């Protein structure tokens, strides 16, 4: 596989909110198939960076490239069609619908059927069948007809990921997928992430170092919106600046 074109490249990215410089001259080069862990203290600008990659927030300056293509001017939905997918730190699901319907919406988003004004959604059985398969792969297959409002928090976390995985993304951004989970649930979600196919490049924000470092191949440390250290997992962990800013002692 050619690694010539990075899956995700960020060049000279800046975001200013009033007087706050949330992103300061960030440059990132994430190769295809990488598992990149983004770390940094609270308020380091990790989620803000994600929001700029997806297009929810427009950068003040700089470029974001997906597989060499500049997507900085594209809407979030257009970026999704180029293979970008994400999950949210705060659960962002469709609470009134069944789990199955949630995943089906994820599938529908990239299908031209979403513009069909008259064909009943209930008859889109291929979407539902595929959604069911995906749910089984994350261990939610047995409860696919439950409403999101009826399932436990840990299951919602897994559904968050299932919804993104349904789109078979080329680049997947996971924003604290382990937040608020018990030890047992952490292990489940960790395995889920570890089993994401290598064709998908994964960028992960996570505070649980024990789990996240196992998953990561490379690490980027952000602090006050700046990239402080960037490199392979071993390099970043052993770097004294990482200890100073993040790991402590």
């Amino acid at each position: 596989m050619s690694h010539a074109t990075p899956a995700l490249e960020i060049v000279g990215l800046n975001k200013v909110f009033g007087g706050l410089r949330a992103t300061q001259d960030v440059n990132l080069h994430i190769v295809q198939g990488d598992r990149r862990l983004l770390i940094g203290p609270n308020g380091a600008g990790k989620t803000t960076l994600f929001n700029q990659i997806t297009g929810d927030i427009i950068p003040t300056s700089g470029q974001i490239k997906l597989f060499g293509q500049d997507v900085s001017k594209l809407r979030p939905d257009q970026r999704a069609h180029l293979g970008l997918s994400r999950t949210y730190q705060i659960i962002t699901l469709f609470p009134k619908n069944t789990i199955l319907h949630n995943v089906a919406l994820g599938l529908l988003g990239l299908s031209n059927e979403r513009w069909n004004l008259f064909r009943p959604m209930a008859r889109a059985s291929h979407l539902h069948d595929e959604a069911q398969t995906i749910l089984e792969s994350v261990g939610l297959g047995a409860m696919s007809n439950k409403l999101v409002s009826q399932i436990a928090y840990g299951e919602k976390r897994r559904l968050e990921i299932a919804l993104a995985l349904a789109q078979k993304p080329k680049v997947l951004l996971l924003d604290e997928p382990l937040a608020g989970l018990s030890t047992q649930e952490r292990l489940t979600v960790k395995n889920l992430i570890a089993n994401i196919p290598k064709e998908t490049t994964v960028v992960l924000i996570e505070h649980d170092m024990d789990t996240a470092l196992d998953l990561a191949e490379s690490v980027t440390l952000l602090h006050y919106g700046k990239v402080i250290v960037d490199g392979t997992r071993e390099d970043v962990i052993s770097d004294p600046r990482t200890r100073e800013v993040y790991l402590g002692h």
Partner: protein
Amino acid sequence: MNKVLMLLFVAGLAIIPLVSGDFYINLATQILIAAVFALSLNLLVGYGGLTSLGHVAFLGLSAYICAWTSTKLGVAPLVAIGLSLVITTIMSALFGLIALRATGLGFLMITLAISQVLWGLAYRWASVTNGDNGISGLTRPSLFGLSLDSASSFYWLTLIISIFAFILMAAFAMSAFGSSLQGTRDQARRMRALGYNVWLIRWITFIYSGFWAAVAGLLYVYYNKYIHPSALSVTASAEALLAVIAGGAGTLGGPIVGAALLVFLKNYASSFVERWNMLLGFIFVLIVLLMPDGIVPGVQRLIRRMRGAQS
């Protein structure tokens, strides 16, 4: 089971003119027209989460275009109807461009402002609209040689069009597109991340909803054979919104129940109770207190609970 019930319901509606007098036939016609209008508003409010306080703009526009082209320009009914539908749909596309710059309260205020502009025009642009006098003298066309002058024949036509409108709006709500629309209502940000063009989904819905409001406007103007600026008033928009919410926003049956209740109270109760507006308000407060999400979801919950208690 549901289909059988629905067919029985439609059959029941169809025989109304055979078993009752003109007063009730006309009442039923008005309910049907209000139901088509409420259903169109419900696409925005219930399925899209876009609360409009200016939906009468499209009903009024369509009614005025039809009345004006028919009586002042003397065009044939079919041409007048075609012009009304086409122009109103185009205008809803344009108004949608403006209104959908915002959501929530902003959207509500812009729709209100647009309908108020039209209301003002209807009053002031007297050379076209006859101002406060309204446009009268519109006659109902005949359909395949059948006169639509009698209460019953116009009722049947309205019923057929209403059924057609209901089916097409229900299909829209239950389609893949309708699922996308409901997704944008519940979680717009996630929908964008999943690849949906949220703005475009809302705009298409706005236009589709405007079209069906225009259909309701045509029925309205041919039923009354008259149009007055009050059809474009805030009160009219608010009443329709109230009907949708009281009946159950985001359900297919809700707007019909709400419209029936509204028209019934307005026409029937007002002949017995002088302060019928107070009665209307009282009933709506009661609905909101007892069934906060509307009559149809409320009754469904009651039935489920009763069934649960039996088993």
